[in-house]
């Protein structure tokens, strides 16, 4: 049996290794349609080159009794890019960029269940793809904010108009960002955390 290459599997470069003191990890999910800039945003704040984890829609083991009939093309591979930020010696934040279609969300166990919250990244040229995403996050009780990625040729609407167009509740923050810019992308995450903090503080008081 050929396990060619398995002896040379790389793993992280030494500078990408986490310190021994890293004991806890949290995650934030960046949701958005194709081409909206999820990977750009993840990459601009990540301390490592964004990595990709894949999952096959056809689970391994399905149909193995009939391998001769298995068509490779029928098992769809879905990729999810992610990055990492070491927040301090112990705490690590992972950022996952995931497609908006809910059928992908179930491929990764607990993608949203264990997440602190989500960033819905939108492109004003294609607002319609955001409606479903926002509705599904609300259904699942995932706290989120909306970040408007500023594309040079995209119409620039005032955020209030976008809030109305997206039918966003007044409590959900909406911010503008440039996903290519590290500080701007970081500020999106800080805005999300401040929102989560206000939710948690309300919860702790009541």
């Amino acid at each position: 049996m050929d396990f060619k290459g398995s002896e040379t599997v790389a793993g992280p470069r030494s500078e990408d290794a986490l310190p021994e003191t890293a004991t806890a990890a949290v995650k934030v999910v960046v949701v958005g349609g194709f081409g909206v800039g999820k990977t750009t945003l993840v990459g601009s704040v990540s301390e490592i080159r964004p990595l990709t984890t894949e999952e096959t829609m056809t689970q391994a083991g399905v149909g193995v009794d009939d391998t001769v009939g298995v068509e490779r093309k029928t098992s769809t591979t879905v990729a999810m890019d992610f990055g990492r930020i070491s927040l301090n010696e112990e705490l690590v934040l992972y950022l996952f960029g995931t497609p908006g279609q809910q059928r992908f969300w179930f491929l990764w166990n607990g993608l949203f269940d264990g997440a602190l919250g989500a960033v819905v990244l939108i492109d004003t040229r294609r607002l319609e793809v955001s409606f479903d995403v926002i509705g599904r996050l609300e259904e699942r009780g995932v706290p989120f904010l909306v970040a408007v990625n500023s594309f040079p040729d995209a119409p620039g609407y005032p955020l209030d108009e976008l809030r109305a167009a997206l039918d966003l509740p007044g409590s959900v923050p909406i911010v503008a960002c440039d996903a290519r810019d590290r500080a701007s992308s970081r500020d999106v995450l800080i805005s999300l955390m401040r929102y989560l903090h206000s939710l948690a503080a309300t919860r702790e008081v009541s």
Partner: protein
Amino acid sequence: MREGDQEWDEGSPERLYVITGGRSASTADSSLDLVTLIVARSGPTAGMQPEAASILRMCHSPLSVAEVSAYLELPMSVVTVLVDDLLASGKMRSRAPVAAAQLPDTALIEAVIHGLQRL
């Protein structure tokens, strides 16, 4: 032409089936999350399955299960089975992810904000 004469497809269901020993790669029963940090407690031993040995080698310092999946170029569902085995046999230990049961507490969020502000 027999199927076995074809080039071995790295991502084929057949290969993944072989790696997991034919077990269902459902992640539902696993406690492993994408961001569970795992660390090797010992090095690979002779005769160990190559993928399992690779995991032990790359986890000499902590790494998330998602990173292992990325570096091995294997689906999370397959990596989960392998890592669960390594945990059960005591060759690895895991560091439980911070459980954000409903909403995380304010202290955790403040730590995240402080970390982000230093970027």
